[in-house]
């Protein structure tokens, strides 16, 4: 059952309706440090939701709560209209939540292809025994998934480095491979933690295009942390602003940009 709320229309004319994920009064503490203080917000089906805020505001921690890696001391996470019980991260992933990481977390010992293939664990179901024999179901499954992965590789234009071990790749390509891995899972909700850090404008443009295309073509809901205001303002449908663990703003880019609290805490000067 979906949680109906007032739909709204985005800048490019799409209607955004039901809630997919809702955070209710989340509080997360580490010893004395309060990383998140009583924050509530929602993510709706099909939107691009940005989370911004100064360094150490608790943005990444929030993503970690969503993906089940941190368990908040207080508050509830609602997913598709149901309260989500305490879950292990891999169970959350199986529900269709995929993500990238701020400090790239690729599997360095594996090739790009293998990294992206790991993203498809949700789709691969053959057991140990058929894997041992290989011929038959295991091989068939491998080929099917390989085809799907190749599509993503084409889509992100990383064909040329398919077989390269990821450890050797430069930073920007690693980010792209990470995105590929997340996309391979065909997620319903995609969490991106600073996907464009360390990229130049040209690369940011590419990345923006990928993100928009994913959102358009697959209808994937995206939650995004980013420090480049240009990107955030251009891409996102709605923005949450955090500061020191608190929420200080929530709304369309337009609203947020003009929110005095946000300007104070984060933007410094009103952004052009």
């Amino acid at each position, binding site marked *: 059952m979906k949680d109906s709320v007032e739909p709204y229309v985005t800048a*490019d004319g799409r209607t955004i309706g039901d809630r997919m994920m809702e955070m209710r009064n989340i509080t997360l503490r*580490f010893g004395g*440090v309060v990383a998140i203080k009583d924050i509530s917000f929602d993510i709706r089906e099909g939107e691009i939701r940005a989370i911004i*805020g*100064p*360094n*150490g*505001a608790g943005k*990444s921690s929030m993503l970690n709560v969503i993906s089940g890696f941190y368990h908040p001391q207080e508050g509830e996470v609602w997913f598709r209209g149901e309260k989500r019980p305490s879950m292990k991260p891999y169970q959350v992933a199986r529900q269709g939540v995929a993500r990238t990481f*701020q*400090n790239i977390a690729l599997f360095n010992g594996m090739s790009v292809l293998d990294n992206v293939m790991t993203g498809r664990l949700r789709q691969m179901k053959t057991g140990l025994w058929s894997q041992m024999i290989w011929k038959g179901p295991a091989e068939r499954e491998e080929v099917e998934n390989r085809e799907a992965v190749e599509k993503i590789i084409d889509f992100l234009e990383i064909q040329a480095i398919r077989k390269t071990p990821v450890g*050797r*790749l*430069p*930073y*920007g*390509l690693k980010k792209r491979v990470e995105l590929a891995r997340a996309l391979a899972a065909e997620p319903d909700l995609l969490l991106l933690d*600073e996907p464009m*850090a*360390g*990229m*130049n*404008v*040209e*690369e*940011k*443009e*590419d990345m*923006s*295009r990928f993100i*928009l295309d994913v959102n358009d073509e697959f209808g994937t809901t995206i939650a995004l942390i980013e*420090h*480049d*205001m*240009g*990107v955030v303002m*251009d*891409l996102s449908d709605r923005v949450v602003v955090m500061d020191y663990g608190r929420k200080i703003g929530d709304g369309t880019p337009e609203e947020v940009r003009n929110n005095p609290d946000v300007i104070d805490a*984060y*933007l*410094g000067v009103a*952004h*052009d």
Partner: protein
Amino acid sequence: MLDTDKTEAATLLDVNNIEVIYNHVILVLKGVSLSVREGGITALLGGNGAGKTTTLKAISNLLQSERGEVTKGSILYKGDRIQDLSPSDLVERGVVQVMEGRHCFEHLTIEENLLTGAYTRRDGSAAIKADLDMVYGYFPRLEERRGSQAGYTSGGEQQMCAIGRALMSRPKMILLDEPSMGLAPQLVEEIFGIVKSLNEEQGVSFLLAEQNTNVALRFSHYGYILESGRIVMDGPAAELRENPDVKEFYLGMSDEGRKSFRDVRSYRRRKRWLS
């Protein structure tokens, strides 16, 4: 805006046609030459994988532990060859690198991290204390988290920590690798402000590898553009900012001004230097 032709100051660092090979097989730098003038801020720009990090590591001699080596060319600092010095000798001579991706000492607290930065100094604990306060002055957030283990601080806090740590050695020349990465816009401005004031007040020279071309060119005097291991363009920062290619590819501006990220197409003009 800084004036670009400040002085005819002496060349502090001179990189001459170097080649770098990883693992004995992967050729990454294919003859890179650049120089940094005493008291200057020099930016090294270029896309992902262009070899910026590799260049900086070649200078600070950190390549060895990555199984990379400089096979050709020379690197001179104040006229002396420094290729055979150990990284710690270099730090003692005043060349220190802030590595890409933070590299804080996870298990040490923020304050201990900063103190290790003063490892090579012999001028007594009072002076070190003073510099510690200076760093805290630059980054108040660090002072708040001084007792936390660096591994548990946020990405941006770690970045501040890494920069602060480098400052603690009282360097004459800092190799900064992507200082703005992962920092909030306000902080980026702040950091570059700090770079500028260090440069102006204490005469520290900088070699700066950056993706954030906009800011980098705004604060530096001279710039080099590196692509696939070769320098493809160089010039005073102000000139580079006006170059149409740089504008399009590095600053994201077309003739009509800044485009929205929503409107970018996959089509683009070929870079002129690749023709």
